[in-house]
């Protein structure tokens, strides 16, 4: 199976844009894997071959990279990919119980999707929201301070097609494929939605305001900005042209299998 011509055309256009961001094309591989996942829902043989052909590397090299990273899936996931943090802190705060109850509730396990294709589950490692433990993620949006009941209701609501909003994120969840497209570097225009910070994130600031604590006040007599430094004063080294490939010999880190 290969991509339909119009899908292929769009992929090629997007891939070209991604490659243009980097001094060397190979840097585009991770975003391109997010891109093909945004079309197929997981990393397919077609996606691997598309990346390989576009970047002039082998399918084995692409596969080697895609299997290293846990966000690239080797089988179809649900429209809503539901993660439960079971790293130590969240696990102890209740993540283990949430995971147990959620797997029993849905009948699926780690990186598995329900037959209707709506929901898949994943045991997550720490997602950098420990002050909101136990934490869950749906399509990589935050659901904070979860309980087993809230977790099951969340999954039921998603299966029933209800609009669900994360604790700190967009006003409603986008699909798994749409999320992958943002990760590929194609913004969806939703950055302005949602709160700036969750209540826990503000605890220190609120306490400081309440007690009148601030950082030391800077010297009020400090110099005001002058005219900018001119271009001629910044000469060493010469500015490079972003986006241009860099020639020269093979440098450390520029080829695979360099640890021999």
């Amino acid at each position, binding site marked *: 199976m290969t991509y339909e011509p119009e899908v292929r055309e769009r992929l090629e256009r997007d891939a070209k844009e991604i490659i243009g961001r980097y*001094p060397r094309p190979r840097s585009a591989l*991770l975003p391109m894997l997010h891109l093909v996942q945004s079309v197929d829902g997981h990393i397919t043989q077609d996606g691997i071959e598309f990346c390989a052909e576009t970047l002039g590397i082998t399918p084995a090299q692409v596969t080697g990279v895609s299997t290293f990273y846990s966000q*690239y899936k080797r089988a179809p996931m649900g429209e809503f990919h539901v993660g439960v943090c079971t790293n130590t802190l969240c696990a102890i705060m209740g993540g283990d119980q949430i995971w147990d109850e959620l797997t029993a509730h849905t009948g699926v396990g780690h990186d598995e999707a329900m037959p209707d294709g709506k929901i898949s589950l994943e045991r997550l490692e720490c997602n950098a929201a420990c002050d909101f433990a136990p934490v869950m993620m749906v399509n990589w949006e935050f659901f904070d301070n979860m309980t087993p009941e809230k977790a099951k209701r969340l999954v039921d609501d998603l299966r029933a097609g209800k609009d669900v909003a994360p604790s700190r994120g967009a006003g409603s969840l986008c699909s798994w494929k749409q999320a992958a497209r943002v990760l590929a570097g194609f913004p969806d225009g939703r950055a302005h939605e949602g709160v700036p910070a969750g209540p826990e994130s503000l605890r220190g600031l609120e306490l400081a305001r309440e*007690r009148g604590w601030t950082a030391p006040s800077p010297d009020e007599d400090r110099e005001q900005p002058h005219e*900018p430094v001119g271009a001629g004063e910044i000469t060493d080294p010469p500015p490079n042209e972003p986006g241009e490939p860099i020639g020269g010999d093979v440098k450390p880190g520029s080829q695979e299998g360099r640890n021999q």
Partner: protein
Amino acid sequence: MTTLTPVLTRNWDQADSFTRAGYEREGGYRALRKAFTMAPDEIVQAVKDSGLRGRGGAGFPTGMKWGFLPPSSPNPRYLVVNADESEPGTCKDIPLMLANPHVLVEGVIISSYAIRSNHAFIYIRGEVLHVIRRVQRAVEEAYEAGYLGKDILGSGYDLDVVVHSGAGAYICGEETALLDSLEGFRGQPRLKPPFPAVAGLYGGPTVINNVESISSVPSIVEHGADWFASMGTEKSQGYGIFSLSGHVTKPGQYEAPLGITLRELLDMAGGVRAGHRLKFWTPGGSSTPIFTDEHLDVPLDFESVGAAGSMLGTRALQIFDETTCVVRAVLRWSEFYAHESCGKCTPCREGTYWYKQMMKRLEAGQGTEEDLETLLDISDNILGRSFCALGDGATSPVVSSIKLFRDEYLRHFELGRCPFDPAKSTLWGGAK
């Protein structure tokens, strides 16, 4: 008494804190204008003088790192921001980028100008969709305002910034693994030397700094190195975000001078949750040896935490009360390191694998005191023999827990099971 010093968190309660308008209303991008009145080397010197040390865990002096770049090189030089925050317990950069992405962007522009780079990358872990949206948008807004692109603010200086999403791999927080990942490879660490300052991204001189380090630069430029150094301790200067999580009444982010103590922070956060007492905690994430209530008054700065036998790390204070089984905690961390070991070097790949197998058995009560010696022996074969710090970090919880809680391991073996009820540790099960 130490008090909080909100700088990076100062605007987080403003509804539009993450927009350029909101950031500029609070004085944002003033430092950038001032930076362009300074020569690049003056900024490097100011960062050196400020005493700023890397906020990503290792604590290496930021200005010194910048100073390692060779004065000239045939290859372009790069700034890479490490926004791959994944260390268990660490949760400061993610809320920072969500609420205040422009302070990072302003820091990137000033830092790139200081090190004479024209191309910067922000490598954000891929599992934080909305954070990525916010940083993408902040970079777009900076281009729209003429803060990025060609001839920034008429300075003649050019800079392009790329927001790059990772794809789920803790190891990519290791700076050279991050570079391999950014170049489109499996994220595996590189042999050092050469250090990234000499041969980094695409072989060019590269500075890699943590989000919070780079975000601290605008305040140093605007208010001066002395202002920054007036906070903190003699060798650990400035402010930092302290993240309290777990069995604490008010978990959250507390921005304070380095050198504050857990006792002071717990007091601010309402103490350990009602009816319970502190059992153990991490000063800086799971890779830092655990502490107990004996360490409540250790100043949380690089030197004091080091002298007390752990590391300041990322100031990720995970608090566990007496309902928590330390063996279970260590088991789960060991599973994490085994999952995240990149497989490149044998001590880490095999060592974390065996940690996991053994800890599972021990937590289930199927062990003997001899197993503890085996665990320590494995630890000796990982620590200092691994390719990067991931393996070293994996040994921290194992070794420190055996040192501090040997009796609790033995109790598991005597009973033939775990003596704790996990339900009591949960958010909803804590009531006595």
